[in-house]
């Protein structure tokens, strides 16, 4: 099945998604790699300057360019998700993010967390960074840029019809990678 979904996702919308479905999303997404996961897990909720529950989590370290004080996305494909396996169970429990975008799949702990928190993991084609950048129409904000540098900072993007995302680990305990 193919779905065009608007973020944030409702619990029912998450439940409808199964392994093998193709999804295009419209709304806000935030990037977070290793360092951003660590910083967000160590921070108090009140110190997180955006609402992770309403956005999709994108495992991505984008290539950005600042032009006349405005940030633009040059290339922004997914990074290898398995590096975030050590954080994701706690991350989903704390922030209740409903949709993850990454590549390469994740492990058993994340699969259980997806099940428990009613969330899905989707795969975007690795390396297709130029195409992804075309679907990001606005850079909403950036956090921890000074401390973490361009790839590791948290970037908030407004996206339209971002995909194709393959549902590869669903909320029903199924994984395409097994």
């Amino acid at each position, binding site marked *: 099945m193919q779905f065009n979904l608007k973020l944030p996702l409702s619990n029912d919308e998450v439940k409808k998604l199964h392994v093998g479905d193709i999804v295009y999303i419209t709304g806000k997404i935030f990037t977070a790699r290793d360092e951003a996961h660590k910083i967000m897990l160590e921070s108090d909720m009140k110190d997180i300057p955006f609402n992770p529950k309403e956005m999709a989590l994108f495992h991505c370290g984008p*290539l950005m360019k600042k032009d006349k004080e405005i940030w633009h996305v040059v*290339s922004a*494909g997914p990074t290898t998700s*398995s590096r975030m396996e050590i954080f994701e169970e706690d991350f989903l429990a704390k922030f209740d993010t409903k949709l993850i975008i990454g590549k390469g799949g994740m492990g058993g702990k994340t699969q259980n967390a997806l099940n428990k928190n009613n969330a899905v993991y989707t795969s975007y084609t690795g*390396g*297709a960074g*130029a195409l992804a950048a075309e679907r990001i129409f606005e850079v909403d904000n950036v956090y921890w840029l000074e401390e973490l*540098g361009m*790839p590791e900072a948290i970037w908030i993007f407004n996206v339209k019809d971002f995909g194709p995302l393959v549902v590869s680990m669903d909320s029903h305990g199924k994984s395409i990678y097994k």
Partner: protein
Amino acid sequence: MIKSIEDGIVSLIKKAETELPSDVIRALEEAKKIEEGIALTQIETILENVDLAKNKKRPMCQDTGIQTFFVNVGIEYPHINKIKEYITNGVKKATKEIPIRPNTVDPFTGKNQGDNTGNHIPYITWNFSKGNDVFITSLPKGGGSENMSKLGMLKPGVGIEGVKDFIVDEVIKTGGQPCPPIVVGVGIGGGADLSLKLGKIALLRPVGSRNKDKNIADIELELISRINKGGKGPMGLGGKTTVLDVHIEKAHRHPASLPVGIVIQCWANRRADMVIHSDGSWEVK
């Protein structure tokens, strides 16, 4: 003159980052013919992305890699002592101009250098030959695929069959992580470092080319077939094409050692070539 050659380095990096070599595109087109379902959507997305990157002159992948160069210096070239400076300054300039992602981080402090240079980086391999031209190949190497590299110090008793099994198992194990369909470079023999070095050098060969030694060429074909039968497929989502190619290089080994260095390259097997002439003029190919 120095400025102009630095611009040449920028142009070399830009070509590598934005235009996938035709041999790799051909292999992806072949994969498109045999894949279906989700595997086909992955190949189609890759090809659409490759087209877009070339037309819009933007890096095809946000991971623009560690800047890696193979330099063959003609010993009559008059400014040999300047070549490293040309490359390093070119990398700094390319970081801002193309742009490419700042990818050099201090392993102790975690600080990003911001300009793609640092200790030992850009990573340059030097060779020397007769003549007065300098040939430079750019091979920007992404982190996701590099993380899947593997060194096996096998027992010589396992023989070439053991080497083949090791390569097939290790490559299939990487699943979707290195962004398949991948190109695999393998160095067999030498010591630990040399086998991995040969694995990386093997990536410079065009996709579809075979080792000149018929026996090794046959092993390459056998490995391609065995790995692809594993079914991991594009992005590890299942399918017929896990590898676009396997390239093997060999070195003689110590009687007690059988090193096997596996270097994994994502589908974005980015490469570009440049020649600098003794009068300072240059071309990027």
